[in-house]
Structures are given as C-alpha cells and as structure tokens.
C-alpha cells in the first residue's frame, strides 16, 4: 500500500517535526512495514519552472512530423526575462497555456540532462515537459497543460506539481487489512504518536429510505450489506481535479476518468471498494445471488468467464452484470458518456471473495480488500463520499434515494485476563496500560475483576482471540521493550543416534574425497529412460506433482541417481571432469492412493485418525548415492593416474558401512543403470541395501558422462538401522605367521567365495585373509584364474609352532579345494 504523507497528515495532527522517515519507522514498529520511502520527482533536479506560451509556429518537417517552435515566457527564471525559444513535438496546447519547462542544466528522471541544443533548425533552450517525462504518469495527449491558476511564469514547478510529495510504501500483512486505506494508516499514525485522529468516514449521512436504485439480496451470507446511491446529470467528460489524480497516481493506481478516479480515491481513502454502474444500462433492480454452475459473464477486462455455483454474482434483468467484490461486467460499465451513475458500496463475505478471486485468477484492488476483511459499517459513508465527489467535480445531482439492504454484523467481544499481555510477552505491562492501549486501538473496553472485555472495532475483523488483543497491546508498548531471557530446557539427550550416524556418513565420504551435492528431487520419464529402466522397473512408479514447475520433471524422484548424474555432467561441462560426488536425501516411494484426512483442529486427532494420516503418506527412505567420473587418482608428473571404476563405487559403500560398523556382503548382480557385468548388490544379512558398480556405457552416453563412470545407491535408513557400536578387539602380542597361498579356480567364481572358504577352513587361528593378486594367462589355462591370498595366523596366548601353522594353512586350502575345486599352485 502506497500512502502519500500529505494525505496521512490530513487525518492526523502530526507535529511538523515528525519527518516522513520518523513516521515510517513508527508505522513499522506498529506492524506496517516500510518497504520504500519515495519522493515524487525525487530524481528531478535543476531549473523546472512554469512557463506561459506566448506564441508558436507549426513547422512541418521532411520526415512528416510537425514541430512547434515556441516562445515561452519563463519570467526571470532564465536570468534575462526574455522569452525562451523551445522546440516542442506536441500540439495539445494553445497560446497563453501554462506549461512546465525544464531549462538547460536540469536533469529529468533517468538521468536525462537538458542543455540548449540545435534541432530542426532552431536552438531549443530547454524542453516543455509531459507528465511521463517527469515520471508523473502515463499521458496520451502530449505535454502537461496546467490550470491557469496553478501559478505564474517563472514560478518553481516543484511546488505547483507537488513534486516533493513523499510517499510511504508499506507492506501490509493479511491481518491488517484496515491499513489498505489511508484511514487505517492514519489511525495507526495517530496511535503511534499519541495525537488526535480525524476519521474521514465520519460523515453526516442521509437515512436509508429504500428509494435508491432497487436492490434484492438473495445471498445475504455472501453479501451482508448492499448500499446504492445515484447521481444524475453528471458530466462524464469533466476532468479529474489534479489533487485526486495525483493522489490516485501516488497511491499506485492509474487515473482514468473522473468517475473511475473518484471510486478509486474513496477506496484508497476509506478502504471500501466501490463499483459504479452506468444507470442507463441497468435494467431492473440489482440482484445479488449465487451464480448457477456454468453461467457466463464477460468481466471488465474483456474475458468471458464460466461461473461456479459458489461465486456471488451481481445481476439485473439482463442476467449477470458483475462478479461481486471482484470485478464488474462489461454491459453496465461506466463510459465516457455515462451521465447517470449508480454507486454500489457493499460488504461481501471474505471467504467467498477469496475463493472467487482464486478460482478465476482475478486478484483486484477490490478483492484484495474484501478477502482480508473490510469494515462492514463503511458502505453508507463511502457511497455518500463518492456521490459528493462526483457532483462536486462532474456536476449533476445526488438523488435523495438511499437504498441499504442488510446491515453490518454485530460487533464481536473478546474477553481476556487483564494480565495476559504481561504473561505472554514477558514485558512489564500493567492492567492500566493494557486497557489504555486497547482503547487507543479503537476498542471499547470494560474491566470486570481480573478480566477485561473488549468490543472489537468493526475495521478489525482479524481480532478474534485474547492473543490477538495481546499483540495489539504489545505493538503499542513496543517490541523493543521485550526483555531477553534464556529459557531453561530440561537436560537434553543430544543428537539422536541416527543424526550422529548421518554426520558420520558425510564425514567419511568427504574424507574419502567425495564432494556432497544437493539436487532438486524432481524427475521425469526422460531421466528414467536415460537410466535404462525397463518399463516394469519399480523406480518408474513415482508420485506426480500436480503443479510441477517443469512439465519435463513432474515426479518426485524415486532414485537419487538422475540428479547426481546430471550434476556430474554439469561439472564435466564446466571443465571439472574428474569428480566424485555424493548425496544423501530422501526419495519418495508411493504406497497406495488413500487420501490424507483433513482432521479437525479443535482437538487432538485420535490415534486412528493419526494412523490414517501417516499411512496416506508415501515412504520416504533416506538414500545415499555416489557417482565417480574421470580419474579417481589424478595423473601428474608422477605418472599416470587411475581412472575411477566399478570398484571405487563399491568401495565407497564399503567404507560407509565400515564407518557405521555394519558388515555387508557384496555379490554380483545385474540392474539398470549399471553395466550388467560390473554391478554389485550390497546386502546386510539378507536385506538388500542397494547397488554399486560401473554405469552402463549407454547411461554414460545419455547423461554425457565420461566413459566408465561408476555409481552406487543404497538405502541409508536400512544401513543405519544395522549400525552397531564398536567392540574393542583384543590384541595378541604373540608373533604373526604369514602364509601366502595361490589357488587356481574357475574364472567366474567370485573371489569372495574362495576367501570365505579359506576363512572357514583355517579356523580360529586365522587373523586375516587378504586377496593380493589375480592372475589369468596361458599358464593357468582356459577358463581359470589364479587367486593369491595372504593369510595371517596368530594365537592370543602363545607363539604358533611350525606344525600348527602348516596345519591351519592346509586346512584352509583343503576347504577351498573341497568347496570350489580349487587347485593349489606351487
């Protein structure tokens, strides 16, 4: 809401020394937040004066244009008193007209510097200004022509044009709809400085007599009050007085015509939206009713709208003529010839207006106010004010008829313990202060023992609860007085186990050279295709967002890989080819399609209701994914690096599992988007954690990743669920016995199976077994490979004898031979 300071001051007896900055700061402290403090013409400098046109010659130019070579009297403003010669492109003025002249040396908005310059064969010493050039609005007709009494030639134009007027732009919160008017802002300004307030809505009003334009309200729930007044003999061509146009313009609306400007002016002044009808186009009484489903109305903006049965509609004998409180219709629109004006000032149900506005995507100045709540006692005063202004500036007469259907709802009362403001704010607020501030805000207050009852003023429909009264008291006392006191929480337990484990996962991966990323969880079919998921893949079953930002990504993702692979590719595109990335985030796995219940809010949900709500939500397990592209170990002056591969992806999972104290098993698998021969599934016991390995070559290509990029994705929730605390190993100080064995086995036998056999056969003397070489070649034979393992034996209580070591080694080998037909190489 933009409020000209001079307009605020009209209703508040603010001391001169209160600057606009001070006023804005005080309003901000009261809850009307300063957005900007502007000065009309604040970016104009230099000589800007009034001038009288003495004479001019119209000079047609070769380019088809006609320019005017003008002699303008600018008094002594040019230092000589001689007429000023100025070339002007406009022709909407006559000799003797008073115009606005910027002399050489002046600067207009946009840093446009004016100097005497040669143009069209003359030296033009300055410029005759249009409203647009002065930043005062959009004009269509050319330069500004002022009324003859605006001043004398040579007068400073800043005053004449009110160019130094200050405008405070305030951000109005939804609960302070009253401040969408000068009346409301001025009321808070008066409150803030403790000075008297003059209510512009306080007027002598004629009694309603039912003889204005007839009105029938068939939907009183949607329209509690409807007032009409009528003006006849109005001159539709009469100009809007400068002060109205200027204020409307300063408040951010466009001056259009006297009738429209007056209705806007009164809306800005009082907060009551007004609608004007061309009375000659109305046939029969105005009827207010709910629309019938599918009914149609062409609104002022020229759009034909299909209505819903919930819309409140204004109709006459011809059918719909307006969407109540939102926008009028075309058929009864005021025009440049309307001389018979029917003024509507009504009160509409906020919820109804809100829904209609939202349904038709038609936010308007009127709907903005109605949906937040307008003072329901205003319609009569507002209609009367409009009628007065119309007649004062456009002639004609106000008819005696005043129609008023319905009445404002009774004022609401709120009861509150007297000490509640002190108890809630922690400030030292006495009962007297509370009562005084609530009265200052506008409520009538009665004290009864330990409680007060406040009658809520009609312009404050937001006040419904005792805590609303607390805020009113607190804002007047001032939030700056709230003391700072640390509350004492009971002894806490610190982070949960899962929260600590999650931090550990991040640190482990960062320590291993991975960089964490955060991706958007939105995904599309294109990404599923690029991953090579077949049509039955469960990851294609995703929740769809009804209003996704991008039609290409309408789903909540079921896998972190698309985001991560895209991010790796983006890095590659920016020259960072060698990357190792990780992300931990929830994925969304739909289950069922039961709706989430909308539960009551006046009590705690029952257990059953709570369960139903939980069950309606999708599963959202936390996933961990990594991707590696390019070199895992860099090439350098030391020689070749090492390209990232399937093993790095699996190792990342192993390291995370190990950091969490989880024993995992890895076995060969085949699943998109991985290379079918280079994909591992990772398990904890029998529970599948996820997959890791080299990406399928087609996937690398589809995402624009380097060849042989690798990735992993696991369910981190499952992994963390299996985390176990570390049990300290008991360390034997007896010597270790190291034995190497090489075993020839079938080429497709997993190494881990051989290691398992060795471990089992070796028995408890075995400390560790580690594969250190894999060899294939002619020596070994077709379809075979040789695996070399380093075994370490140690006993907790003695030095092992040669015989014990040999026996253990042979037992290990024997198990591998028995189980996998292994042949020991010697």
């Amino acid at each position, binding site marked *: 809401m933009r409020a000209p300071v001079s307009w605020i001051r009209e209703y508040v007896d603010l001391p001169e020394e209160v600057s606009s900055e001070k006023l804005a700061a005080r309003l901000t402290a009261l809850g009307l937040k300063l957005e900007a403090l502007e000065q009309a013409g604040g970016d104009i400098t230099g000589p800007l004066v009034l001038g009288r046109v003495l004479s001019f010659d119209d000079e047609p130019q070769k380019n088809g244009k006609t320019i005017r070579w003008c002699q303008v009297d600018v008094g002594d403003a040019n230092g000589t008193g001689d007429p000023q010669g100025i070339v002007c492109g406009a022709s909407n003025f006559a000799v003797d007209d008073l115009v606005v002249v910027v002399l050489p040396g002046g600067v207009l908005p946009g840093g446009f510097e004016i100097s005497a310059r040669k143009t069209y064969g003359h030296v033009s010493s300055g410029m005759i200004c249009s409203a647009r050039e002065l930043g005062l609005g959009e004009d269509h007709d050319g330069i500004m022509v002022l009324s003859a009494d605006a001043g004398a030639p040579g007068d400073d134009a800043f005053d004449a044009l009110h160019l130094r007027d200050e405008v405070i732009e305030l951000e109005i*919160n*939804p609960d302070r709809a009253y401040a969408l008017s000068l009346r409301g802002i001025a009321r808070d300004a008066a409150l803030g400085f403790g000075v008297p307030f003059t209510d512009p809505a306080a007027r002598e009003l004629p009694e309603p007599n039912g003889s204005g334009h007839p009105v029938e309200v068939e939907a009183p729930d949607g329209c509690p009050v409807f007032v009409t007044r009528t003006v006849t003999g109005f001159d539709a061509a009469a100009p809007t007085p400068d002060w109205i146009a200027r204020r409307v313009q300063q408040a951010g609306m466009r001056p259009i015509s006297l009738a429209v400007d007056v209705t806007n002016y009164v809306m800005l002044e009082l907060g009551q939206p007004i609608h004007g009808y061309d009375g000659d186009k109305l046939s029969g009484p105005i009827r207010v009713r709910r629309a019938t489903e599918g009914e149609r109305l062409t609104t002022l903006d020229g759009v034909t709208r299909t209505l819903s049965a919930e819309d409140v509609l204004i109709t006459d004998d011809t059918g719909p003529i307006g969407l109540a409180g939102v926008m009028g219709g075309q058929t009864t629109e005021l025009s440049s010839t309307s001389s018979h004006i029917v003024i509507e000032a009504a009160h509409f149900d906020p919820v109804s207006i809100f829904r209609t506005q939202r349904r038709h995507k038609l936010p308007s100045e009127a709907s903005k106010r109605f949906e937040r709540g307008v003072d329901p006692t205003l319609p009569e005063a507002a209609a009367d004010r409009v009628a007065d202004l119309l007649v004062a500036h456009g002639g004609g007469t106000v008819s005696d008829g005043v129609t008023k259907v319905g009445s404002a709802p009774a004022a609401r009362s709120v009861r509150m313990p007297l000490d509640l403001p002190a108890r809630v704010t922690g400030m030292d607020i006495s009962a007297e202060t509370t009562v005084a501030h609530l009265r200052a805000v506008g409520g009538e207050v009665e004290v009864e023992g330990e409680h007060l009852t406040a009658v809520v003023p009609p312009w404050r429909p937001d006040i419904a609860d005792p805590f609303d009264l607390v805020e009113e008291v607190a804002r007047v006392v001032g939030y700056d007085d709230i003391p700072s006191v640390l509350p004492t929480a009971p002894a806490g337990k610190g982070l949960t186990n899962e929260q600590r484990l999650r931090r550990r996962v991040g640190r482990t991966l960062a320590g291993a050279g991975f960089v*964490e990323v955060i991706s958007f969880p939105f995904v599309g079919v294109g990404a599923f295709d690029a991953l090579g998921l077949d049509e039955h893949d469960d990851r294609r079953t995703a929740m769809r967002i009804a209003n996704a930002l991008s039609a290409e990504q309408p789903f909540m993702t079921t896998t972190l890989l698309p985001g991560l692979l895209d991010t790796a590719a983006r890095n590659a595109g920016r020259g960072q080819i060698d990357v190792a990335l990780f992300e931990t985030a929830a994925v969304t796995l739909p289950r069922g399609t039961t709706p989430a219940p909308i539960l009551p809010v006046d009590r705690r949900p029952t257990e059953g209701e709570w369960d139903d709500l939980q069950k309606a*939500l999708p599963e959202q397990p936390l996933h961990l994914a990594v991707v590696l592209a390019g070199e895992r170990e*860099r090439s350098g002056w030391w020689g070749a690096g090492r390209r990232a591969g399937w093993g790095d992806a699996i190792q990342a999972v192993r390291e995370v599992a190990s950091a969490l104290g989880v024993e995992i098993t890895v076995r060969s698998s085949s699943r998109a988007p991985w290379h079918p021969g280079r994909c591992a599934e990772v398990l904890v016991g029998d529970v599948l954690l996820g997959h890791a390995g080299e990406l399928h070559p087609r996937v690398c290509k589809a995402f624009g990743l380097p060849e042989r990029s690798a990735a992993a994705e696991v369910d981190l929730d499952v992994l963390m669920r299996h985390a176990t605390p570390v049990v300290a190993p008991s360390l034997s100080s007896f010597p270790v016995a190291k034995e190497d064995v090489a075993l020839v086995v079938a080429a497709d036998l997993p190494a881990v199976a051989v290691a398992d056999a060795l471990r089992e056969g070796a028995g408890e003397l075995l400390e560790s077994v580690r594969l250190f070489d894999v060899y294939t070649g002619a020596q070994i034979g077709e379809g075979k490979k040789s695996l070399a393992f380093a075994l370490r034996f140690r006993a907790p209580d003695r030095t092992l004898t040669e015989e014990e070591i040999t026996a253990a080694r042979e037992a290990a080998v024997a198990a591998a031979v028995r189980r996998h037909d292994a042949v020991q190489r010697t």
Partner: protein
Amino acid sequence: MSGPNTDYDPVEVTPLKAAEVEAVRDAALVAIEAAGSLDELRQVRLDHAGDRSPLALANREIGALPPQARKEAGQRVGQARGAVAKALAARQVVLEEEHEARILVDEAVDVTLPWDRIPTGARHPVTMLSERIADVFVAMGWEVAEGPLVEAEWLNFDALNLGPDHPARTMQDTFWMEPVENAIVLRTHTSPVQARTMLTREPPIYIVCPGRVFRTDEYDATHSPVFHQVEGLVVDEGITMAHLKGSLDHFATSMFGEGITTRFRPSYFPFTEPSAEVDLACFVCRGVDSEHCRTCKGEGWIEWGGCGVVNPRVLVACGVDPDRYTGFAFGMGIDRTLMFRHGVADLRDVFEGDVRFTAAFGTEI
C-alpha cells in the same frame, strides 16, 4: 692372535728394525690420509692393516725373536699398528660423513612439486550450517526433530491455523501431489515437524527442526523451489516472548559473534500470535558506517526470519493444553543465512553442485 712362531726366518726380521717399522707406519698413514673414498680406504686397510700388510707380517715375526728382543720389537710394532688403526678409524668417520652428505645432496628433490594425487572431498555448506545451528541449540539442551518432505496438507496448513480459505495459504505457493484431493503436499515450511512433535510427545518441548522445504518459486539468484529452513519450538509452562528473544539473541551471538543480537518487528503468521519479524544486527558493520556495508545494504540490520508466540489454536489442534502451556516458535532460511554469512551471491550455486563451490567450504563451517 697368532700362535708362537715356529718357523723363524732370520731374513724376514729386517722389518723389525726401528727405522723400517716407522717407514712402514708412515707409508700407511700417508696412504690413509690420501684415501679419497670409502672404497679406496678399504684397499688401504687391506694394504696397510690387512693380514698380508708389512706391519701384520712384522707382528708375526715378533715371536721368532730372541726373548730379549721381543719386548722392544713388540712395543714398536704394536705402537705402529695402533697408530695405523686409529688413523683408519678416523679416516673412516670422515669419509662416511662425506659420503652421507653427498648422497643426501644427490637425493634432493623439488619440494614444490604438487602431490595432489587424491582429490579432496567436502561436505555441502547447507548441511554443515544446519549442523552448526543444531549444535547451538543442542548445547542448550534442545533436541533436533525431523519429519517427512512429502507431508499431509492437514499438518502443513490446518493444524497450524491455516484453514482452507486462509489468504496466507496461497501466499505459500504450494506444490500439490496428484491427485490433489488426496491432500498431500510438499511441505512449504518445517512447521509440520513442530506439529508432529507436539502430537507425539508431552511438553516440555524444546526442539529445533532444520530441513528441506518447497515452494513453487521460479529458480533465480535469490529464489529456489527447493530451499532449507530451520525452525525452533518451545512449549513449556510460563514461556513468554522474552524467552523467544533470549533464545534468538543467543542463537545470533553463537553464530555471528559477541554483541550481535536481534530486534523484533510486529508481523503476521497464522501459527503465532503475537508475531514478529526478526532482524539480525549486521555482524559486518555492527551498525557503524552502515551506508557502505554490502552485507546489510546500509540498514545496519539483516532480515533474518519470523517468530512469535505459538497461537493457542495450534496448541489445541496439536493436543496441548493452552491453559497450562504457552510456547514460542521461530524460523529462518538456512540458505539465506549461508548467503549473507558467507557472501554467496547467487543462490543457484548452492544447488548446482559445482565442486568448486562446495570444495571451498571444506568439512566444517
């Protein structure tokens, strides 16, 4: 030690003469001094102190001398051998030192060569800042609460006093899941976590909820459809706005340094009443000479978030007795805090995953 000499050869006795012994000794000393390397010294040792060296041979002769001559000859040869041995040892030390010094010089490397064979990892600054914030509150005994991103409409709105026709509901630009009738949304704030906490445990409640939230904002330098919030909730007996102010002042000081506190301005949120906007005192200029401050843009204050006293209607919907308990809540943007705390100019840097951005933050913030 050689055994007694049994085959005495009088011809060989000549070296035992004093002049001869001295000459042999001197020749040895000269050769030792002349040895330029450990290898040369090894040869000199063989030649002058080895088994076949003149002094060794002379030593062997001693036994063959008549007893009256043995003592004198023995002394003479012994002294000569001692001198040679001592010179050898001394020379050995010198040459070894020289050798070692030469090798170390030869082995010198260019220590300025890079050794970045394994790239450095990093954690995301938003993750780290969330943790850092959580730690401030955990240190006060609060706990960290979390909840789902895909959330029931009732928890995201209704339970928080945002009824279906509340104007604020459209302000939030919500992502709705299909079918819309199923009343499931992407949470627009972390407040549903507060509601969940109140619904599942008894006061006193002291929690902080960092997390990811969603609004249908177009993606640009200062807006993102995905962003992060941290909210706090306290529900206890006798809680006031002063406790809210105290908690936020402590939060501000912990994150931005001594003396950095907050200021409240009246505002509006459906879930709190009274409500306030929180401004953070500018931690860069501290309100001094603010006009030139790029962080607060001349204000001396930075808009930080919103807060207020939990609306009793929210307490009722969440099963908390509003006559016994009061509460406060606050919320601020983590990404926004990251932006002004660390001078991030473009919010998109936070979400695009450029490793240059994230790596700059390392593993602790």
